[in-house]
């Protein structure tokens, strides 16, 4: 019996194997989309619980990894939309250019950890667009579709994210 079939049959050990194979990718996506590791961990739990419940609907048209990634992405997007609706601060955060302290200019290569921390600090709205476009590799049309925004808005948000990262990373 293959791994997915064992998972469907309620084999928790098989599900753990599935988790071990895909958790890092989905956790990383969740942390970056949410902007915090704590929220990313909560999202990861919800994603895998949802996967456990929905495995019966997996048709095998795509790989299980692709199926899990789509499920995770949709879950992250739901989370982002829900948080955005609650806070209703998208416009303000996108326009708030004064929230970052100026730092001394650095010309050394950017360390991964510094970049991760800086991405976490990006304002909501432009962070999600940046993660989807620059990290996950979706084009602007796809990002627009995923986030429910215009393509031009996606471009503008990614641009703003990069400019904010430049400040956060002390490049200006």
């Amino acid at each position, binding site marked *: 019996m293959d791994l997915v079939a064992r998972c469907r049959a309620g084999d928790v050990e098989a599900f753990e194997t599935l988790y071990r194979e895909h*958790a890092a990718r989905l956790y990383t996506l969740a942390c970056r989309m949410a902007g915090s590791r704590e929220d990313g*961990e909560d999202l990861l739990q919800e994603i895998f619980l949802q996967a456990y419940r929905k495995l019966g609907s997996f048709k095998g048209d795509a790989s299980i990894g692709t199926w899990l990634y789509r499920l995770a992405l949709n879950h992250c997007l739901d989370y982002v939309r829900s948080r955005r609706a609650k806070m209703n601060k998208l416009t303000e955060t996108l326009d708030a250019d004064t929230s970052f302290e100026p730092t001394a200019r650095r010309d050394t290569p950017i360390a991964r950890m510094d970049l991760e921390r800086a991405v976490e600090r990006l304002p909501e709205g432009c962070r999600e667009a940046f993660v989807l476009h620059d*990290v996950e590799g979706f084009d602007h049309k796809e990002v627009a579709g995923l986030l429910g925004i215009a393509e031009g808005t996606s471009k503008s948000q990614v641009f703003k994210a990069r400019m904010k990262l430049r400040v956060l990373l002390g490049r200006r």
Partner: protein
Amino acid sequence: MHPNDETLNAYADGSLPANEAAEIERHVASCVSCRQLVDDLREILRATADLDLQDPPARAWMRIERAIQLEQEGARAEGARAFQASERDIASGHGHGPAKAGHDGMWLPWLAAAAALVLATFVGLRYAPGRSQLAAPASQARDGAAQASAGDAAQSVENELRQAEAHYENAIKGLEQIANAEQNALDPRTAATLQKNLAVIDQAINESRAAIRSQPASEPAQQSLIENFKTKIALLQDTVALINEMRKGNEAGAARIVSGLKQKGN
């Protein structure tokens, strides 16, 4: 004239049309500030492409596994409930009507199970071995040379007794409020089990109080009373929490509490 930042950004990531890109390239070659921005943006893009995956903390899987187990337990309980309901229907000749949903149909069996666990847990704790350990501070006090410290200890125990009693009264009050509010919804079996639990615990408390009356200075008796109070408070809090979870229809939360009661009883 400098190109705007958006144009430089598009140039940096290669999304600018070729004819425009050539023009910007010429400008950037001779303009330090624009070249700096382009270099910075390219460095950010390079670093972004170089980002690694992050491993979740080890506890993440444990949380997921636990949640799955709770779901499985919930599913099994649901199946058992359906079976019991069908048995009752058959016995009462009601046949297979629509499944009971919501308030009284969903949580009362959980409450019955939890109430039984509360009883088992309490009895287990009450007669658990190791009670003699409670006498250790008393013997230490007897052996101690300083009467003042023994007096302080007695005062402390009295204070603790008073505090515990206050907690106990509050917990009882909270439970009574919920029980009154849900009085009509409780099935007779659940109500009877809860009454039995209360009676057993109250009896233990009365026994401790009687022991203190006959030996007011007995620290084991005092500590026994405190332990009984604390145990009852903890169990009542769990029971109240369970009722709340069942009210919300959160079976996973309820199962978690029942599981906690089971562990305490082991």
